[in-house]
């Protein structure tokens, strides 16, 4: 069974890159794209429940941290692993990200590293 990854980022270059690389490297990965926090929550509410969420922090509208808070509040999908992706490495954001999310990926990243982190998060949930 394919693993669905919900990728939330407003930058089409980034989403194209990540989607292309992940699906290119791993045939069992299917990447679904949301361009904002709102769209992400909308999809989740439509019962499109992914195995993991890659969440950008700097988003238009509600930002990544706020989006993650909303995800955690809803029992239906609160357990889905969240991996923050961000260009910012401010201490505050990193702390918040670590606190609310399951992992933290800093741009620019090595795709192998991203895959390892996604798998690790999914495995952790399963165990």
């Amino acid at each position, binding site marked *: 069974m394919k693993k669905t990854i919900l990728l939330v980022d407003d*930058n089409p*270059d*980034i989403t*194209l*890159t*990540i989607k*292309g*690389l992940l699906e*290119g490297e791993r045939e069992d990965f299917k990447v679904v794209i949301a361009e904002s926090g709102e769209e992400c929550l909308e999809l989740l509410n439509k019962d499109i429940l992914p195995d993991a969420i890659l969440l950008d922090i700097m988003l238009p509208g509600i930002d990544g941290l706020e989006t993650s808070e909303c995800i955690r509040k809803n029992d239906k999908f609160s357990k889905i692993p969240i991996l923050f992706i961000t*260009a*910012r*490495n*401010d*201490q505050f954001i990193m702390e918040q990200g670590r606190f609310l999310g399951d992992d933290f990926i*800093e*741009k*620019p*990243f*090595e*795709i192998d590293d991203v895959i390892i982190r996604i798998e690790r998060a999914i495995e952790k949930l399963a165990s």
Partner: protein
Amino acid sequence: MSDVPDIINELRAEERQGLLNGGSGGLCHQIETSNTVLQRGINKNVILRSELLSSLLKNIPDSIYFKDKDGRFIEVSDAKIQHLNTDRESILGKTDFDFYSQKEAEKMCIDEKYVMERGEVIQKEEKITRPNGEIAWVSVVKTPRHDNQGNVVGIIGISRDVTNQKKYEIALHESEEKYRTIFENSAIAIMTTDEHENILSWNSYTEKLLGLNREDLFMKPVHTLYPPTEWEKIRAQDIRQKGMQHHLETKIIKKNDKLIDVDISLSVLKNHEGKVIGSIGVISDITENKIKDEKLKEAQQILIMVNKALEEKVKERTKEIENLLKQKDEFIYQLGHDLKTPLTPLNSLLPVVRKKEQNEESKKYLDLAIKNVEYMKNLVQKTLKLASLNSTSFKLDLEVINCWQIIENVIGNMSSMLDGKNIEIKNLVKKDTFIKVDKLRFEELIDNMINNAVKFSYDEGKIEIKSETEHNIIKFSIADNGCGISKEESEKIFDEFYKADKSRHDVNSSGLGLSICKKIVEKHDGHIWAESAGLGKGSTFYFTFRITENEGKK
């Protein structure tokens, strides 16, 4: 001829004889026996006068001399004998020319001629040089001598030594002259008053200071010079009781009723009986001092104001600069982050494309692109790191760590990245070295330092990491046997964006590694520096950390 001196001579001879015969009575007896009774009364009178004269000549301290018409000494007093420094016999019959210098004798001769020709008495004070060379002042009286017929037959001279008196007079005169000069030429006003407080005398500067002349001052009550309130102040000092008073600041009335500020010193003048006979005042004009004081105060005020304004400006500027620096940090930070996103596709996709590419030439170009993207990524990361270390919100996350272990880990992670060089890295830090630091920063520091050492090592290199503890300081050293650094360079290498070789377009170096190291060390209140024996002789980098007693060794 019945000259008196002749009589005296005869009498003297008789006297001497009488003395030889046993006492003064002998003289009378002989005269009595050789003269008639009639003559006795006259003789008695003559004898008395002779005795008187004889005693006078013998005892008087003045030089007395009798001279004949030709200036020859007929009789002299003992004092004269003494002054001529010889005996009586050697004097009689001689003239002044035998004893005094030509010039001196001529002078005397002229005077005596005058006396004899005119028959007048001369009285004068003169300076003479005695036969023994002594200079003396003498008061001389020369009178003509007459015979029974009233003819001038010589002179009688009486000369009194007034040298000492003259000396005092001269000294007094000089002293007076001196004081008068001081008094007159002083650039301060000096004024004396009598016992009734009327102005008695003053020096010329007084007139200049007050703009007043003699008529305005002489015998005027001194209080008219002062405003009534000031005069009361002066009177309150009670000078006439106390004797003196120094530096009394007051005001004095100048010409046209203008007031000037003065400093007065007053003293009481007393006579030899201690009775107050007046007072003396020394007055100096302090108007200019006062003006200077005022100006000085004004200048000080201005200075204080200027200072304050400057301080304000400096504060303002400092704030501006701080703001600018903050803006700079924020800008760098923002730029760094903004670069990270576009770097992501490049960084991730290029290796994928490179993997799939078959064309050898394209592969070469892709390798080049990948290398430069790597460099850019490195630069962005380092820049952001430095910016975050510089930011005011930066805080250290302190924890106690095992240094040896951390260094081991760092070396372990980098073995594959030694620039393709065969370099031996030795961790000689003691295994039980613990310090309290920000672990991530410390790792970064060690990583940067070793990377730096590797970068400047030759193909066969050796790097040694050591530490030593002294008091509450732990000093780490990272020594390489690489290309070394010059002294000038060693001071610059920690500057931001400094590159040892600017012409070298080094894609492996951001020029920020050592700046980051410096920041990390400084954030921990430590020091960092580099030493090198010179180019080609390797270099050693040092950095220190503070440790508490519980740390260091556990």
